């Protein structure tokens, strides 16, 4: 892979910071709405990990496909799914991006080729392989990016999918979001080899470790990887080392990690870090940041309003779209 230079000018810094803040503020609102029982079911927050999806999405084109997990609000937002539709989905309203049928774990959006939202750990990887296969067989230059946690690396589907993608030289960018825990299971309790990126060697797949708390590092690695994949060099594996600041889901009592550890990581949080750097470097000033926060707050409140104003799918539609309408 060749080094990719990034111009970190004012506009780009503003963009990166804003994107991360969009996710952060949106999810803070989600947490609040969950306690108010507006959102139900499982809710998995991405707070702390924003740099990963933000950096990766910079490298994608409109026609590329995205496969994510149940922790995918951020990915959806950053991919361009309207915030209102995401929020309405979590409310269970039919204006939601999955008509209210999917909820937090199943965001789908065809216009941006956002393929979910998979609640089965590892379940999205074979799908990503298939999407990439379809693109390749049709001679399209698209790539598919597939996000998953380090916990998923233990699943058989991880193994099968990486092999298939590498064997067939498919345009997949595998992004492992290594936040050190799978629910309450620390990495060293789930993997004999805790260096996840090293596993790519088993498939002869190029891989890199990326500081997932540094949005610029992520973007650089993503652009380099996407360029290589688009050249037809087959899949690339990125392990982004990151940390989730919140509990696994709203049910998690967090017995398995120390408050100290969480604190240590929040201190190097991706937003805090990038923002201070941009201020110091003079690329952004406090007025910029205030403006961003204001724009983001507006987007979030509009999303909530959209969701609140949304309507319920009629119960009579329950059986619609189980399959196409019968052929008779």
């Amino acid at each position: 892979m060749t080094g990719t230079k990034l111009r970190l000018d004012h506009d780009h810094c503003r963009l990166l910071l804003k994107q991360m803040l969009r996710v952060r503020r949106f999810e803070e609102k989600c947490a609040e709405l969950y306690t108010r029982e507006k959102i139900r079911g499982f809710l998995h927050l991405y707070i702390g990990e924003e740099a990963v999806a933000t950096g990766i999405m910079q490298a994608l084109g409109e026609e590329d496909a995205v496969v994510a997990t149940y922790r995918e609000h951020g990915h959806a937002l950053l991919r361009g799914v309207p915030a209102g539709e995401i929020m309405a989905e979590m409310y269970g309203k039919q204006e939601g991006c999955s008509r209210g049928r999917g909820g937090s774990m199943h965001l789908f959006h065809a216009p941006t080729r956002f393929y979910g939202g998979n609640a089965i750990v590892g379940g999205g990887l074979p799908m990503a392989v298939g999407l990439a296969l379809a693109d390749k067989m049709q001679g399209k230059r698209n790539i598919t990016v597939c996000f998953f946690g380090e916990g998923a690396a233990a699943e058989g589907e991880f193994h099968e999918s990486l092999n298939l993608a590498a064997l067939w030289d498919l345009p997949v960018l595998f992004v492992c979001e290594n936040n050190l825990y799978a629910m309450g299971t620390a990495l060293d309790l789930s993997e004999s080899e805790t260096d996840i990126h090293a596993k790519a060697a088993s498939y002869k797949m190029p891989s890199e470790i990326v500081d997932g708390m540094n949005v610029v590092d992520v973007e650089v690695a993503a652009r380099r990887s996407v360029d290589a994949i688009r050249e037809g060099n087959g899949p690339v594996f990125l392990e982004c080392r990151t940390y989730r600041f919140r509990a696994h889901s709203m049910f998690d009592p967090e017995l398995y990690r120390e408050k100290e550890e969480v604190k240590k990581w929040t201190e190097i949080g991706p937003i805090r870090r990038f923002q201070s750097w941009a201020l110091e470097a003079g690329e952004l000033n406090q007025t910029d940041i205030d403006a961003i926060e204001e724009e983001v707050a507006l987007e979030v409140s509009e999303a909530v309003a959209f969701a609140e104003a949304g309507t319920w799918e009629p119960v009579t539609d329950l059986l619609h779209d189980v399959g196409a309408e019968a052929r008779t």
Partner: protein
Amino acid sequence: MSRTMTYREAMREAIREAMNADEKVFLMGEDVGHYGGCYAVSKGLLDEFGPDRIRDTPLSESGFTGAGIGAALGGMRPIVEIMTCNFALLALDQIMNTAATMRHMSGGQYHVPVVIRMATGAGRQLAAQHSHSLEGWFAHIPGLRVLAPATVADARAMLARALEDPDPVLIFENALLYNREGDVPDDLAAIDIDHASIRREGSDISLITYGGSLWKCMDAAEELAGIGVSAEVLDLRTLRPLDDAAIMASVAKTRRALIVDEGWRSGSLSAEIMSRIIEQGFWTLDTPPMRLCSAEVPIPYAKHMEEAALPQVSGIVDAARKLVGG
């Protein structure tokens, strides 16, 4: 004498008791240890028994279920916890092709005393991939025993009985039940998990059910009583083998049967029960049996849609009225 506890506590106490009684018993599964169990069933047990016997596993359903099967073959008494039946699909090959076949296929040489527990059922807005009720599928497999404790007492009693079984036993715990409180008698041995239990006596209609739907049937029976219909509620408890005698006795008495099953209708356990009633009790019936199942649809997230997809008390009452009135 009896004590009150939650279904969750009952399961935990049963695990603790089994582990104290036999050092070969151990619990393995995702997040059973440090997290405390995805439904907090095993909370505290790691401190009590240590990481060898309360063994957190990687996300590898096929691998660790198969390892549990192997450990059972090797002389241990593993309790494998698969978080939910939704993920058990990934372990189905091991359960069906190894655990269930081993004794017969080896000509009786080997047997697999593994207990596999998993949560099942919908009702918590977890949407299409987290709301399956697959116990009916497992009940199709020869070589397995399939249990579905619906009461706190059964939850407390079944595990020990399952561990006595020299063959694989699957326990399906409806996730909605974990917070439920109930009485547990001190004399656990008196709890007969092999036979269905009449949870409410009645004379006009039999509501035949199991697991999470039991309580909907109990509520429906109460409502029906208010309108003069005496409903008997039969809790199957063991889904394989089914207690045909209990089913037929109840139906012979009431002459009408409504089967309530949270599985998707087509090919659900309810069909098997209905077939057996027809095969064994056809001439005792006043009217064809009915069944109330889930709509044939991936369970949606939105609350009103999920409710519409699942059997509800009102639907049970309506169906029962139709049966007795018709």
